[in-house]
């Protein structure tokens, strides 16, 4: 059986014919060449495959492409604009929120879901929001710092000097 999926990905309308068993992450990576979305565990645990479907973070390895028919999907490739990196991307860079970078796309998409809900998250809220995202490198500390810094930028439009957002568990 072939199913037709029509969806908007990073602002562009896309039409793809898929087998119903095709996962959303396969559609993104293999059919649309959007390989910024990673597959870490393939068992719904690690969050590396996190994308937004209609504005909400989901694990794209745990959603069928056909379930995304008619939706609006945002992947890490859709975060930067012509003006430059998304504040979360800039903050991960600035605050060394990554080492190997494998978890980073999913981490940023999970963080973006959080910052859409609350503009001034506490560190506890940040840690809770990335509970479904594993990082095997950083120890999370700089990821939390980066998300906190991005929240400041998104709230005020100004990047705080890096010292100002350090520390604080």
């Amino acid at each position, binding site marked *: *059986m072939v199913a037709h999926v029509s969806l908007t990905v990073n602002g562009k309308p896309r039409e793809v014919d898929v*087998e*119903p068993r095709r996962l959303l992450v396969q559609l993104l990576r293999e059919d649309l060449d959007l390989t910024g979305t990673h597959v870490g565990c393939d068992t*719904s645990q690690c969050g590396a495959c996190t994308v937004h479907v209609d504005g909400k973070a*989901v694990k794209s390895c745990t*959603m*069928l492409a*056909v379930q995304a028919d008619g939706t609006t999907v945002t992947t890490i490739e859709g975060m930067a604009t012509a003006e430059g990196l998304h504040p979360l991307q800039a903050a991960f860079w600035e605050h060394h929120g990554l080492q190997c970078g494998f978890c980073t796309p999913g981490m940023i998409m999970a963080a973006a879901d959080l910052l859409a809900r609350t503009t001034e998250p506490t560190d506890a809220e940040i840690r809770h929001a990335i509970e479904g995202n594993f990082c095997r490198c950083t120890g999370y500390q700089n990821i939390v710092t980066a998300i906190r810094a991005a929240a400041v930028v998104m709230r005020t439009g100004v990047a705080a000097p890096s010292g100002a957002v350090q520390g604080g568990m």
Partner: protein
Amino acid sequence: MIPAAFDYVRATSLDDALKRLATAGGGAKAIAGGQSLLPLMKLRLARPETLVDIGRLAELKGVHRLPDGRVAVGALTTYDEMLRDPILRHYGLLADAIPNIGDVQVRNRGTIGGSIAHADPASDMPAILLALDAEVVARSSRAERVIPITSFFEGAFASVLHDDELITEVRLPGGRDDVGSAYRAIEQPASGYSIAGVAAVVGAHDGTGWRYCAVGVTGVGDHPYRAAAVEKAVIGGESLAQAAAHATDGVTVASDIHADREYRTHVASVQVLRALEAAIARLG
């Protein structure tokens, strides 16, 4: 991991979905958020011939108050929607439990109907619904029936639901001022599933003792259950600690690599005590 091939239909209405399930004779499965079913299909532990996607059925979504004061939660309401709902916000045990179910990605897709239909022996929502004495409304193309949650679960991943039935709604009692509720759990740190999760609703103190007590327990037996012996002890005037010691009376306590029987039996009592105390503390 790729699921085995299947045919896919997106149901256009509840009746359409029920008709498709009825004609498939057991070969079809409903999919809601897919947070339990897809992992199973990817492991090929589930191989439905046809998936009936009920995920878009607006008639099964949302929370509203019934004329008799009770609260109806549509089967497709996600955890995230429940967390944000102004009516459900007043249920202390939901506010305790839902933020710790899975992670934000799972809560964005996982539904209340899927959670109970899946009947995972360690899932949290069943314990909560047991303590609330909820009712499950199930519909097939033949009939609609209302199932008390206390007779819904039959075993691990087994419930009284038939293959051609869908849960349409879960009904909760309307809030009452004289009871408090809470949820306490000890989780297996990697999976987040409860080793012992306890929902308690306690109250109606008449000056001499508690006249109302309902306790739901998950993660401990082969299915979530009401800890009737605890409830009886609380109402009978025993101390909360004495009552909590009855947490696993009459239950074959599960034993696995995460928690052996002795440990699980112990933490079940600890969580019952904590949930009872927290529920009473909410009474103010």
